[in-house]
């Protein structure tokens, strides 16, 4: 049982900030830890829209084509450690994910969070994953309450990396 537990693939969810500033960088310690350990990074349709929106904004900053950055992103998604939790057509998956806005608002209100954090919490709960976020103002600030009520573990990138030592 213990051996099975040790070999089980663990799931992790990165918030958009972690994706852009910690994962998609040269010599990323976070990427090394994920690839060298049994981790899968979960991506839902809502998370993809956030990342693509960032890439769209960055393409304007860089004066390059958004399509180029978007294509690279989809190519990266074919790494075997990235698990996409959506199907074609993408928009249908997104509609299913964001159709529960009233419920999202209730969760946000109960936990005193921003609504944009709730899709991350729902996905983390569904996949029994760890949520890695550097959002000190919201998720990290409220993480004890979230862990107590939903059993969801939230770590900063630094704490997540320290857990491998």
């Amino acid at each position, binding site marked *: 049982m213990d051996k099975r537990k040790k070999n089980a693939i663990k799931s992790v969810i990165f918030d*958009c*900030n972690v994706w*852009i*500033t910690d994962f*998609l*960088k*040269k010599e990323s310690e976070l990427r090394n830890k994920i690839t060298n350990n049994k981790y899968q990074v979960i991506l839902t349709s*809502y998370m*993809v*829209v*956030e990342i*693509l*929106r*960032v890439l*769209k*904004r*960055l393409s304007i*900053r*860089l004066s*390059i084509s*958004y399509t*180029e*950055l978007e*294509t*690279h*992103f*989809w*190519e*990266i*998604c*074919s*790494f075997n450690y990235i698990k996409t939790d959506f199907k*074609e*057509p*993408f*928009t249908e998956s*997104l*509609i299913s994910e*964001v*159709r529960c*806005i009233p419920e*999202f608002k209730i969760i946000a209100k109960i936990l005193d969070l*921003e*609504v*944009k954090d*709730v*899709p991350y919490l729902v996905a983390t709960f569904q996949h029994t994953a760890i949520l890695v976020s550097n959002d000190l103002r919201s998720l990290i600030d409220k993480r004890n309450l979230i862990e107590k009520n939903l059993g969801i573990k939230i770590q900063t990138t630094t704490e997540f990396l320290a857990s491998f030592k």
Partner: protein
Amino acid sequence: MSSTQEDIIWTIKINKRMDEAVQKVLYQLGYKSKAEFTREAIREFLIRRKLFSLLGGDVFIPRSFELTPENALNALIAQLEKLPSDVLKEEVETARIEVEKELLDDG
């Protein structure tokens, strides 16, 4: 569904053919009422429109790729590292707010 003070009742005039088409969809897809179907259909339409304003169109997952994931990762990183980290953080923050406003704010 019970009404609240925040609810508004729409009265929409439609022709017989449209009504028949809606009845058929209700029967096939298991909607409980025309109102439920209409609400969902409008909401789906709005999400598609909002996705258009966020990303310039519908999102299609490519069926084949030119680059390996490793090469794509390097290519994307090469572009992102041209920007200072504070710019990246600022754009992430702005993008998250924009996505929240478009997709999670139903008024």
